C-alpha cells in the first residue's frame, strides 16, 4: 500500500511542480511508484486510476489535445477566498462541532474541508452536537454509505422494518437524504414497488450499494428533484386528505414564526401579527402542534382543528381538576 500512496502523492506534486504539460511516458519514468518493467497496458490502467483518485481529492488534472497532462491551476487551488474573522469563527465552530458528531455522516470530509480552507479545526469554541439521537454511529455510517451511493446514482439494498414491525428487503434508487427531528431519512424510488418512498434510516439494516459496474450509474435522478419537498411538519404526514390550514402568530411570537414554520407554506404580515397558510393532513396533530408551540399561536382554519384545541384544553382542565 505504501507504494500506491507514495505514487499518488508524488504524481500530485510532480504535476503541480511542472511548468509545462508532461507526457505519460515522462510521468512513468520520473515518478517513484510506477513499477519498473510494467507493461504499457498495465501502466495506462494504473495511471488512469491514479488520475481519477487525484481528481476526487480536488487535484484537477487536464489532458491536452497533444496527449499530455497538466494541472489546471484555476480549478485546483482556492482563489479569492477572503473570510472575515467572524466568518472564519462561524465556519470553524460549525465544522468542528459536526465533525465530532458520529451521527453527522461526512465528518472526515468536513475535517479535510476545514483543513483546506481554514488550516485545521483550531477553535476556542467548546461545542458538541448530537444531530441524531438513536444509534448515532450506525445512522451516521449508514447515511455516509447512502449519500455516496446517491451521488454516484447507484442503487442500494437494505432490509427495512416498518412501523408495524414487519421487515422486508428493498432495492432503492436513493435520490436524496434529509435530517428531521433527530432522524435521518432516505427519499428514493423503491424499484420493487415502483414508487418514491421515504425511509427512516434508523429502521434500516446495513445498506449495501450495488457493486456491479461501479462507475456506471444505475439510475437518473428525476429532473427538478428536491429532497426539501419531503421534509414536513408532524401534521403534514399521514393518510388523511390534504387541506389548507390558516394559523395566526400573535405579534409577541411573530419573530419566531420563520423558525417554527421551517420554510413550509406562506407567511403573510397582517396588522395583528403573521398569518400562515400551510397545507396539512391531520387536524389533531395540527391542534397539538399549535398548543405545543404557543402561546400566541392559534388556528383560524379549519374550524374543526380550532375546535379540537378548545375542547382538548377543556379536557386537560377537567382531567387535572
Amino acid at each position: 500500500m505504501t507504494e500506491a500512496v507514495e505514487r499518488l502523492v508524488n504524481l500530485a506534486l510532480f504535476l503541480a511542480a511542472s511548468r509545462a504539460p508532461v507526457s505519460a511516458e515522462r510521468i512513468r519514468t520520473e515518478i517513484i511508484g510506477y513499477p519498473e518493467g510494467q507493461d504499457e497496458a498495465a501502466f495506462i490502467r494504473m495511471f488512469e486510476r491514479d488520475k481519477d483518485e487525484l481528481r476526487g481529492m480536488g487535484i484537477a488534472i487536464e489532458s491536452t489535445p497533444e496527449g499530455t497532462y497538466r494541472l489546471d491551476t484555476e480549478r485546483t487551488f482556492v482563489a479569492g477566498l477572503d473570510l472575515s474573522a467572524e466568518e472564519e469563527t462561524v465556519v470553524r465552530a460549525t465544522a468542528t462541532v459536526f465533525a465530532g458528531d458520529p451521527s453527522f455522516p461526512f465528518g472526515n470530509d468536513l475535517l479535510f474541508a476545514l483543513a483546506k480552507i481554514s488550516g485545521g479545526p483550531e477553535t476556542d469554541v467548546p461545542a458538541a452536537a448530537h444531530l441524531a439521537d438513536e444509534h448515532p454511529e450506525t445512522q451516521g455510517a449508514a447515511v455516509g454509505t447512502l449519500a455516496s451511493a446517491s451521488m454516484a446514482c447507484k442503487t442500494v439494498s437494505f432490509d427495512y422494518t416498518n412501523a408495524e414491525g414487519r421487515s422486508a428487503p428493498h432495492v432503492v434508487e436513493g435520490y436524496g437524504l434529509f435530517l428531521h427531528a433527530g432522524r435521518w431519512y432516505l427519499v428514493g424510488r423503491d424499484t420493487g414497488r415502483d414508487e418514491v418512498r421515504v425511509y427512516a434510516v434508523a429502521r434500516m439494516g446495513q445498506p449495501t450499494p450495488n457493486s456491479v459496474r461501479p462507475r456506471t450509474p444505475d439510475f437518473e435522478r428525476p429532473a427538478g428533484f428536491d429532497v426539501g419537498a419531503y421534509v414536513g411538519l408532524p401534521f403534514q404526514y399521514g393518510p388523511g386528505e390534504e387541506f389548507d390550514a390558516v394559523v395566526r402568530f400573535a405579534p409577541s411570537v411573530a419573530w419566531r414564526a420563520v423558525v417554527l414554520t421551517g420554510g413550509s407554506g406562506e407567511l403573510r404580515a397582517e396588522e395583528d401579527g403573521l398569518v400562515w397558510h400551510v397545507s396539512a393532513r391531520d387536524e389533531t396533530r395540527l391542534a397539538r402542534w399549535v398548543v405545543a408551540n404557543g402561546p400566541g399561536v392559534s388556528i383560524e382554519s379549519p374550524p374543526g382543528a380550532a375546535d379540537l384545541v378548545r375542547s382538548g384544553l377543556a379536557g386537560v382542565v377537567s382531567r387535572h381538576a
Partner: protein
Amino acid sequence: MPKAPAAEQARRMLVLIGLLRPGAQIPLADLAEAVGVSVEQVTADLELLSLCGVAPYYPNDLVPLYVEGETVNVFGSMPALERRVRLSPPEARALAAALQAAGRRADDPLVSRLLRAASDADPHDIERVIRTAAATDPGRHATLAVAVDRCEAVRINYQTGGTEEFTERIIEPLALLNERGTWYVEGYCRLAGAVRTFRADRIQAAELTGELFERQPVTPPGTALPTEALPRALVRFDAGVELPEREWPGLSVVSTDAGGTVVEVPYAGTAWISRRVASFLGAAEVLEPPGVREAVARFAAAEVARVQRA
C-alpha cells in the same frame, strides 16, 4: 463509495501538505486532530510524506520535514502544492451540509462565496439532495459563536419556553450545543447567578457587549438536555396515544395496562411540562407530583381563557 485505504491516506497526506508552513514546529496532536486520525497514524503519514517529492528526488526535492518527539519540524518550502487545494465534491457537500445545520442555506452569502472560491460545487445542487434543515437564525448563531470564541458577554432578549414574557439577560457564553438540529448556548447567566442553557431559537436578539470575561474551566461540553439531576413526574397516556419518547429525553415506562401507559419523565420547569402535557389535548394526565398537576390545570385554564378571548 468509500475510498481505498491507499487513496484515503494519500488524500490525507495532500491535506497535511497544506498545513505545513516553512519553519513551523507543529505538535503532532494538532495535525492528528486536523485530519481526524491518531497521533500514530499522522506520524506514519508524515514520515511517508518526508519521502515524497519531485524528480530527481534529491534531498531538496522532497517534502522538508522531520518528526522529533511530539512535533513535526518543517525546515523548508514544499516542492509544490504550496497553495490551498480546492475542496473535492464530498468535502464541499460536507461543508454545505454543516453550514446548513447552522441555518445557512444555499443562498446564504457566506455559503455561496465559500463554495465558489473553494470548489466546483453548486450549493443549490447539494441542498436538493442533502437537507440538514436547521430552523436556525444564522445571524444569531454567528453572534453566539463569536461570543464563545472571544469570551465576550452577550446581552440577550430571551423568551422562556411556554410563555410570552421576555427577559433581558447578560450571559457569559461557555459552549454551543446542538441537539437534534436545535442549537443551545450554555453560559453563566448574571440574572440567574448560575450556569444556564438557553435555546437559541428563543433568543429574540443577541448583542455583543464588548465586555470580555475570563474563560472558566468547564467540563467538556456534553448534552444540552441532561436529565439525570432533574425532578420526575408521573404521567399517564391514554391507550392508543403514541408515546413521545424521542421528544421527552429521559422518559421511561413505569407500567402499561388496557387503559394506557404510565411513564416517568424528567422536567426542568412546570411551564415546560404543562405545555407538553396540554399539547396531548386531554389524552395525557399528570399523576404526580401534585404541584405539577396543579400547574397543568392552571396552565390549561389560562389557555382556555386565552382561546375564548381570541
